[in-house]
């Protein structure tokens, strides 16, 4: 009896070790899949055009700064301008999205009013409707208002961001005691003052996460900006990337092409590497409750 028990547990232990090895193998394979293309991107951004034509290499070369200078000063694709434009749009819309979503969520969370339930239901219902389905009207409206080649229609809609709203609402439900609001009122604090000076600081972690997500989403956005912006000095990074794809490929310095792609993703990559822990936590917190 005792012997079969130990052999059973030994067998179970072996099985566990085998499954652990299989699991690690799967994880390493998937990590490799995720990293390999970016590794190739970084390696190739350090190689000269002649070197790149010469063949496949996995090791870094020393042409990084040459490629960087060539890409940065390219005459047809003004990447510094594109990055500046993308940054202005992404930063402004992220600030608007985050602030006004918190404001809206607070309005529904903290006050009792007739249309409270209806307002919440409405925002939830529109949450997943993609912007492509009203792009026709949006485009026509922007033409009528002279808003093509303007950042306004890419920034202002950020005020109404249902997903950010939902995240904020969930967060408030878990961390915001209404007693604080009552106490502030007793002290004679006005409603806006309470929100800006007392509530917002309490939401800091949620605000930070949503600032990042909104920024990234806007930075990566391609469909609407490509529709609205066609002047060279107004273009954003994704439009320039598509332009790069459309250009006559064979005439291109490939080291420069890899550098353009690297520059397009670098800001987000750097932020992610620094803050990945918080970002990953933020993925779940605002979605469905576990």
């Amino acid at each position, binding site marked *: 009896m005792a012997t079969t028990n130990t052999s059973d547990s030994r067998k179970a232990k072996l099985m566990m070790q085998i499954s652990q090895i299989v699991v690690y193998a799967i994880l390493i394979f*998937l990590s490799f899949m995720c990293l390999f293309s970016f590794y*190739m991107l970084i390696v190739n951004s350090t190689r000269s055009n002649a070197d790149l034509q010469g063949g496949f290499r996995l090791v870094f070369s020393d042409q990084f700064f040459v490629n960087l200078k060539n890409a940065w000063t390219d005459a047809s694709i003004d990447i510094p301008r594109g990055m500046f434009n993308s940054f202005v749009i992404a930063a402004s819309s992220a600030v608007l999205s985050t602030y006004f979503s918190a*404001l809206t969520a607070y309005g529904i969370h903290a006050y009792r009013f007739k249309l409270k339930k209806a307002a919440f239901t409405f925002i*939830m219902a*529109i949450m997943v409707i993609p912007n492509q389905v009203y792009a026709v009207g949006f485009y026509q409206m922007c033409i009528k208002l002279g808003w093509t080649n303007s950042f306004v229609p890419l920034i202002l809609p950020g005020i109404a961001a249902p997903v950010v709203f939902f995240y904020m609402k969930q967060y408030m439900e878990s961390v915001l005691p209404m007693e604080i609001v009552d106490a502030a009122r007793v002290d004679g604090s006005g409603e806006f003052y309470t929100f800006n000076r007392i509530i917002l600081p309490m939401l800091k972690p949620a605000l930070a996460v949503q600032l990042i997500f909104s920024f990234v989403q806007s930075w990566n956005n391609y469909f609407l900006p490509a529709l609205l912006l066609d002047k060279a000095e107004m273009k954003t990074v*994704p439009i320039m*990337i598509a332009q790069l794809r459309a250009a006559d490929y064979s005439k291109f310095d490939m080291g420069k092409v890899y550098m353009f792609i690297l520059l397009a993703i670098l800001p987000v990559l750097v932020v992610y590497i620094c803050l990945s822990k918080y970002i990953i936590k933020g993925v779940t917190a605002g979605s*469905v409750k*576990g």
Partner: protein
Amino acid sequence: MKQLSAHKSKSKGVSYAKWGYIFIAPFFITYAIFTLFPQMLTIYNSFFENYRSGLKQVGPNFVGLENYITLFTPDKNGTIDILKYAGNTVVLWIGGAIPQIVIALLLAIFFTSYRLKIRGQQFFKTVIYMPNLIMASAFSMLFYTLFSPVGPVNQALLEWGVLEASFDFFAHKVSVRGMIMLMNFLLWFGNTTILLMAGIMGIEQDLFDAAQIDGANSVKVFFKVTLPLLMPILVYTIITAMIGGLQMFDVPQVLTNGGGTPNRTSMTLIMFLNNYLKTSKNYGMAGAISVIIFIITGILSLVVYRSLTKQDN
């Protein structure tokens, strides 16, 4: 006295109610201007003939359902474009989404299993989530350069003697679709893994313990405990992935330079819409396509909404 205080507190509530409306007003005003009005305008457009032909502007003339009829009328070769592109979208979505959900489910179970005790979880999660934040158009451009006839993939395959002549990945339906599916998979599986992990961690640990004591093996635990309890989140994940798939644009658009090559086999619905909108300025047809996509998303959103509110109750 009691009556009075009740009355007073009621009037106090009314005076604060105004602030609720003030706080939510910016959202609804913005929504009305930038979404609701354009949405109405889009639907309105779908009933009009309104396009540019060369330098000549045709319309807008009211044509009723003409645009919708045109959309579903076979062309000279007997193909109905919108159905072809809807089919492409579905194929491309399924090819990316099925492995995405299966792998994500598997990884979520690995990560949450206290028997396996996976080390370096933070590292693996960080790596697999990363592509989700990467600019899809740049990722697609990267794939284009890597898989181009003179790119590193072909160079490697030639150098290792796998190929005799470089293979044009962009001339074959299977390889183009395969690349799009692979990219969609890589962009999204980390995100899905993290969502499903949260779902599994939300399940009472006692239930797993009880099943274990009853002698259930891991496979049985998965099918009898984990999966049924995870169902609401899984449904939410699948439906939102479907809505995301319907919007598929950046990856195939950049990879094929808007052409959906070869032979329009990788052209998605939104690329079709984009062509009408940008290239031919045909607002009527673009409007009709938008309305159709809107109806499909509407139905899918209803399912999401119901699964979300069920969660809340």
